[in-house]
């Protein structure tokens, strides 16, 4: 039975099934807390631990690592497709090219300020909290859209922590989608550009879905800022990695 429950096809089924369930729930409720990626991570981790426990009657890091390898083999196709999925981000950028053209100065200012304060606060806080330098570097792209964030942690040579990057990015997005609107209320924000750019550049795609609640324009400008923000962070990462040589 356990070999059936940990077979590649069953692992794939569990992954897509949980994701589908939460995507459906989120579509109904529009709650950022029901983020499908976050809950798929949580439930798949629980499921893998359960498989290890049922199979070996004990759980230790070595057994977990072996089962994770088994799991990775089952869902490898998703990882392989990540590059073309990232390339597809050109489509929303193209669809919003007029927004980019009309607001280019505000978008550049937002990206520069967003990226520098983001990396700056990560370095400062990481140092204050005594975090290991390679983990701090894995947090540089905390506000960048997941696809680009993961590439950045690999670029910085901390690919072994890319999974932490991905998780932190998703949680940042959820935090942003909840806190962002509260901060906007506090600032008495009403213009589309500042609302959209703050949400998009501080909490990427998940924040952008909130920007669309304000207006179509706020959402469009937020979608553009996700990409510009990602690129600028790549440039900063590039400089950092060249300086480290």
């Amino acid at each position, binding site marked *: 039975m356990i070999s059936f429950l940990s077979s590649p096809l069953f692992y794939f089924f569990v992954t897509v099934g949980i994701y589908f369930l939460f995507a459906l729930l989120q579509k109904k409720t529009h709650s950022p807390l029901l983020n499908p*990626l976050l809950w798929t991570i949580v439930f798949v981790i629980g499921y893998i631990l359960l498989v290890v426990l049922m199979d070996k009657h004990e759980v230790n890091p070595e057994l*977990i690592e072996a089962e994770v390898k088994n799991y990775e083999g089952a869902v490898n196709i998703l990882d392989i497709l990540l590059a073309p999925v*990232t390339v597809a981000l050109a489509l929303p950028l193209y669809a919003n090219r007029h927004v980019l053209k009309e607001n280019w100065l505000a978008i550049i200012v937002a990206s520069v300020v967003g990226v520098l304060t983001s990396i700056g606060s990560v370095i400062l806080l990481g140092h204050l909290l005594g975090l290991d330098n390679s983990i701090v570097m894995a947090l540089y792209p905390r506000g960048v859209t997941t696809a680009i964030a993961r590439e950045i942690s690999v670029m910085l040579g901390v690919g072994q922590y890319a999974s932490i990057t*991905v998780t932190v990015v998703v949680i940042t997005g959820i935090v942003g989608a909840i806190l962002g609107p509260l901060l906007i209320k506090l600032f008495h924000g009403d213009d589309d550009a500042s609302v959209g750019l703050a949400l998009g550049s501080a909490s990427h795609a998940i924040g952008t879905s909130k920007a669309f609640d304000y207006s179509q324009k706020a959402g469009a400008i937020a979608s553009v800022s996700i990409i510009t923000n990602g690129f600028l962070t790549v440039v900063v990462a590039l400089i950092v990695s060249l300086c480290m040589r």
Partner: protein
Amino acid sequence: MKVMKQILIIIIFALIGNLLSYLLSLINFPFPGSLIGLILLFVFLLTGLIKSEGISEVGQYFIDNMGIFFVPGAILILNNIRILSEIWWKLAIIILVAFIISFTATYWAVRLTLFLQDKARKKKEVKEND
């Protein structure tokens, strides 16, 4: 046929990106291949060499369901469970505080930019009227 053709087009851009990324890495210039692919596809869309309708079904599907493609990478967090059990609260503080700082800074920077742009525009109008 249509879906397969769209998948192939997008994969070709990802592959060209990866190839160029590999060539750049030879001259010690690390740049993610998928981002090169993204820029190339954007340029091809702008110049009209590729019509956005020609890749929109698969492209939109990828974008709408992007999250699932990160699951394999994210699950590897299980291999870092020992470190995480020690630092998770530090990560939580960083997530929260860094968000508030960068959100607030970005918001006011844009407000200031728009204000200055508006002022410059009015000044120009006054000058033209003189």
